[in-house]
Structure formats: C-alpha cells, structure tokens
C-alpha cells in the first residue's frame, strides 16, 4: 500500500432513474414562435408574453459570460427543447387525487410524498416535473393565513397583479445572459406571497425534477414577504443520469419589505455526470434578494453537491436601512465537477449588515471556486460585512480557488475577510486510523465539522439530510 488518497469514487447516484410518461413536448429550438407557444400553453396574460418577448430580444443581443472559472463545450441553444410537460387528463387539477399516479410515484421514489397525510406536517411542497408544477400541497391550509403558495403559472392566472408588480423587479430581464434566457422561456416555478404581519405557519418547499433528456429546465421563483412577515423556504433538486448535459437556468427573486424576513435554503443534488465528466446538469442560476424595507432580512443557505457545472451567486441588495443579508454555503465537487459559486452583497442603506460563510470542498479532479462581491455604496453609512471563505481539499488532484471582490465607497464601512485552506490527506487519515477510526468515519467527521456553521442554518430535518448527503457523496472516496 503506497499512494494514499485514491481518486474519489462516487456512490451510485440513487436518483438517476427516468420516469416513463407521455409528454406534451414542443419541437427543439428557440424563436419568437416558440415563446408565443409556451405563453399560449400556459394561458398567460398579455403582459407576460410581452415580458418574454422583450427578454428574448434582449438575449439575442447578449453573449454567454466567459469569466467564470469553468470549462464546457459551446451550448447549442437551438438543440434544446424549451417545453415538456407530462400529459394530464385535465387542464386544471382540482385536487391532488387527480395527479397522474406515475408522477406521484416518481416523487414518492425521490422521498417527496405529495400526499398531505404522509407529509411532514409542517412542510408544504410544490413539485415541479420538467417544465410544469404537478402539485402543490397544503394550499388551502396556507390560504387560511392569507399565504399564497402555488406554481408561478397559476399565480399568473389567479394573481396577475402581484406577479406583474414584482416579476423582474429584482432580476431585470437583461441582467445577464442566462437570466434573459430564463425570462424569455421560463415554464414554471413557485410563487409565494406572505401578507403583512404573517409568520408563515409551515416550511414551504419546492422540489425540482428534471426527467426528460433534452429538455432545458427554466424555472422562475418569486417570493414576496410583506411588512413584518416571515417565511422559510427550501428547494431540492434531482435529475436522471444521461450521457448528455441538460441545461438548468433558473431565476429566483426575493422581495422583503419593512421588518420582513425570508430564509431561503437549497439542497442541490442534480446529476453531476460520471467519474469521467460525461453527462450531468449545467446549473446556471441567478438568485437575488432585495431587502427593500427597513430592518428586513434575507438569508440564503445552500448545499450544492450536484451538477456537472455550477454557476450561481445568490445575492442580497440591501436597500432598507438596517437590513441584513446572509449567505451560508457548502459547495462540494467531486470527480470532474466544476463549481464557480459565491454571492454578492450590495450595501445601499445605512447600517446594513451582511455575513458570508462559504465552505468549499473539492475532491477527485474537480474544481471549486468561491467568487464573491462585497460592495459598500457611498450611501451605506456604517455598513458592515464579515466574510469567511474556507476551502477543504480531499486528495491531491482537486482545485480550490477564492476570488473575493471588495469595493468600499465610503469611509464608515467595515469589511472583514477571512480565508483558510485545509486538507484531508494521508496524514489526517492516518491520525484517525491510528486511533481506530475508519477512513469513512474520519472523512465524515471532518466534513461535518467543516460544514457545521452552514448546516446549523438549515431547517433541522434538512440539516440531517444534508449531512447524510455529503457523506454519501464521498463514501468510498478515500482509501
């Protein structure tokens, strides 16, 4: 036994199955006709079609960003299917009982029961399969408190004025290449509205499932928290194993008004490709929260374990005085995965505060980059930021990079940045082994310890899941 930490080998991806279901799929390719078709299928109001077309025309003028520390062959946007939905017997479902049992089974298999009786009593779920939302649980119960939780398609039909007011207000259509594409073709996503003074009585969550092999998934999530309200929202994602890559370009917009708080958590486990980097999801996502009101707070927590490529920077724009932005992230890459992820904290209001805790774990031959911007505007008197970016390397062939950008435009701001790099290598494992602890347990203890500050931020049930997920991803990885 000589060379020590061997190439990491993934446990088989257990969500890699494909559901055989009849779908309503439009031809490949993208043009104005396709956009009109999508809008028509979703029976959207006229303003939405205009929004899409404006975005599309903007997108045509833009070029794909190349600054991220990732490599992939050019994407042929004309080779993607922009809408694919499982065929439902009825256009509008009145209850969960009317959902195709194959779909219910699929989510059941993923550990997401859509039967309200079986669900954790305090979590409501919106389940999205390829381009459409197939079911949303606990809608009526939430409605008693005035909380709206439904698919964005439904929101466009039932609450067009709310959607119109906020959609694109945080991430404008021309914000970036992928956001523009999403604005043009997004097919579904979740909509959450918490009325003034309401503390949402349960956790809300959306589960995204990509099923089809050549369909892009473009969801749009919009969460609005009115004055003095609170909501905790969680999203989870999985996809089948295909040799080809699927594009996932989502946009998430959060709006927090005076004294409101939004807690947004993600456990991302898209298919990551095989050990040679074949297949996997391209996860190009724009997430941004607007702390519009005074004393408002937006907190992003993400556990990123999947995707062949992750390009994602959940951000906070702190407009309201005393508002707070937080970003807690664990990004794990293994094999040939590439991640370029981080956050932007834009301080505009007085005494705004932000915290960034980023933990990157790189194993195998993967590349993991933290990229973050902290910007203190001239108006942000007394603003403060604390950033901590830690990297952990497992083995000798993985890469970790940190690209922190700091722009301070007034002299009352205070910005702190700490960074560290640690390693799980032969000597660390030998220390544990010499005390009788197996390599698997050693890695799991070191990883849990490394990620503790982030996992503590997740809702409890999901913190346990996240911990297990990371161990699973690294199981059999060291020897």
């Amino acid at each position, binding site marked *: *036994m*000589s060379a*020590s930490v061997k190439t990491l080998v993934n446990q088989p991806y257990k969500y890699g199955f494909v559901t055989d279901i009849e779908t309503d799929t439009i031809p490949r390719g993208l043009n104005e006709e396709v956009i009109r078709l999508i809008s028509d299928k979703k029976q959207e109001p006229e303003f939405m079609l205009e929004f899409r077309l404006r975005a599309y025309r903007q997108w045509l003028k833009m070029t794909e960003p190349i600054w991220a520390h990732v490599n992939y062959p050019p994407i042929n946007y004309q080779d993607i299917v922009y809408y694919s939905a499982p065929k439902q017997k009825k256009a509008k479902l009145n209850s969960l009982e009317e959902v195709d049992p194959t779909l219910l089974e699929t989510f059941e298999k993923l550990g997401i029961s859509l039967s309200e009786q079986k669900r954790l009593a305090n979590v409501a779920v919106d389940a999205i399969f390829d381009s459409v939302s197939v079911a949303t649980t606990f809608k009526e119960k939430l409605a008693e408190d005035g909380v709206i939780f439904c698919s964005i398609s439904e929101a466009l039909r039932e609450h067009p004025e709310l959607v119109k007011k906020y959609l694109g207000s945080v991430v404008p259509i021309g914000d970036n290449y992928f956001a523009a594409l999403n604005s043009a073709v997004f097919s579904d996503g979740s909509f959450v509205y918490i009325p003034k003074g309401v503390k949402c009585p349960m956790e809300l969550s959306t589960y995204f499932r990509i099923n089809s092999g050549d369909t892009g998934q473009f969801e749009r999530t919009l969460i609005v928290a009115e004055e003095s309200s609170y909501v905790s929202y969680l999203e989870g994602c999985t996809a089948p194993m295909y040799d080809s890559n699927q594009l996932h370009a989502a946009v998430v917009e959060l709006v927090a008004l005076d004294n409101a708080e939004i807690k947004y958590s993600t456990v991302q486990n898209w298919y990551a490709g095989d050990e040679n980097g074949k297949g996997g999801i391209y996860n190009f996502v724009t997430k941004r929260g607007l702390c519009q009101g005074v004393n408002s707070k937006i907190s992003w927590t993400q556990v990123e374990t999947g995707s062949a490529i992750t390009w994602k920077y959940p951000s906070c724009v702190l407009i309201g005085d005393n508002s707070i932005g937080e970003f807690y992230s664990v990004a794990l890459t293994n094999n040939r995965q590439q991640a370029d992820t981080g956050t932007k904290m834009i301080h505009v209001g007085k005494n705004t505060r932000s915290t960034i805790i980023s933990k990157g774990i790189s194993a195998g031959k993967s590349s993991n980059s933290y990229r973050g911007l902290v910007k203190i505007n001239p108006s942000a008197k007394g603003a403060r930021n604390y950033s901590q970016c830690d990297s952990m390397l497992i083995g000798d062939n993985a890469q970790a990079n940190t690209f922190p950008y700091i722009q301070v435009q007034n002299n009352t701001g205070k910005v702190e940045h700490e960074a*560290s790099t*640690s390693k799980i290598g*032969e*000597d*660390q494992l*030998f*220390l*544990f*082994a*010499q*005390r*009788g*602890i*197996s*390599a698997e*347990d050693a890695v799991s*203890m*070191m990883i*849990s*310890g*490394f*990620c*503790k500050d982030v996992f503590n931020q997740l809702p409890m049930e999901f913190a346990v899941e996240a911990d297990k997920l990371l161990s699973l991803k690294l199981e059999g990885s060291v020897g």
Partner: protein
Amino acid sequence: MIIENSDLILSVKDLQTQVDGTPILKGVNLEVRAGEIHAIMGPNGSGKSTFSKVLAGHPAYSVTGGEVVFQGTNILEMEAEERARSGVFLAFQYPLEVPGVSNLDFLRVAYNSHRKAKGLPEVDTFDFDDLVMEKLEVVKMNSSFLERSVNEGFSGGEKKRNEILQMAILEPKLAILDETDSGLDIDALKIVSNGVNQLTNAENATIMITHYQRLLDYIVPDFVHVMAQGRIIKSGGKELALELESRGYDWVLEEALGVGV
C-alpha cells in the same frame, strides 16, 4: 519493569522498509515483553521515527522484508486502524490539528471503535463523559480542552498532553511514544512523564523514541537501544543512555559499524 517469563508482546525480525524506493530500515530486530519499557535513541535520520510509523501501519512506508508479530499475530497484513484497535498506539511527534472536530467527539469515536473491535457495546455520551473526566486527571488537563477542536490552537505541551490523554482512554497494549519530549518545557515534561508512568503496568509495554537522556530521568527504561543507519546496533540497560549522553554516538557507531564519523 523486567518480569521473568512475561508474555512476548512484540517481536520484530529483520524488518526492512522503503519510502519512494529508498531503503530506510535495513533489518531491525527487537523483542518487547509485557511490563517492559524500551528506549530507542540514535542520531538524526537513523530510522527511529520511520520505525514507529511502520509499526503503526502508516501507508506511505512499504515493507520489503521481515516480520512484525504483535501478541502472536503478524500485523504487517493489517490496516492501520485494525492495528490500533488491537492495541498498538502511536503518540505522534507532531500531532496534527483537526479543525471542526471536537476533541471530545474524536475521543469518543476512537474509544467506541476499540470497544466494537472487542465485541463490547459502545458507550453513550454520558458514560463517556464520566470516563474522560477521570482520565483528564492523568495529564492534569482542564475539561475546556474537550470542547475545542482536536489540537487546534493547542500549545506544543498541550498537544503532547492530549496524546497521552488519548493513550489513557484507549489503554493500549503497546504504546510507542515518538519524541514525546520534544518541544516540552520542564513542567510539561514532568506532567507528560508522570502521565505515562501512571499508565504503564505489568500487562502492557512501552517504546520511547527520544534524542535526550532528560526524558529517561522521568520515565526510566528497562532497555536502551541505539539505532543507526536503519538497524539497532547496540542494546543495553538504562546506564547506556547516560553513557551516550556524555560520550555521544560516535563510539557506538565505530564499535558496531567500524566507521569513524
């Protein structure tokens, strides 16, 4: 202590090892019986630390010849963790820091891995806390060390005391102390030595690797061996250490290998 006809704990015969193709150990022979304390001394680069790591099963060293029999079993085929669970303990010369893993958790998981290997039920956190509190006394450590990450931010002396705490909890059959005295001030040296002395008994054995006679004033060896150029070239009683202290190694090398330095 030397006990007539006590059990043979460790028998090393003609042990040879390489690192990256370079021979380091070139035929080491050593026998250690229950109750005994052995000191291995020798110039820098003689193979002392390599010997301790090879006994513990560090994967970077490949064994090219010889055998290591521990309590009747050839352990060269065993993984490091199996050797540890069967009773081989190595106190590290440079204990690594493990950020994020609390000392208490580390100790408990290690202890339970040994219990499991013996077919004993694992102990829960409450029982383990009681056990640790008692063992902290051995090295005069404060319980605040338990909440901190393993060795993180510990001083040199605290790290070495933490090694002895682990030894106290795991109760090994064979303890190998790799330059446990290096980096210790005189007070810490007394605490560490005192801890080791409390843990040695007629059932177990200790191998100390050291450069200095100083340690041997506190932990008195039954045997002293001189290692040079990958072999044990001279063995004797505790008086050999005193002689080495006053005369250096040259005369031993000359005597054994016929070379002048």
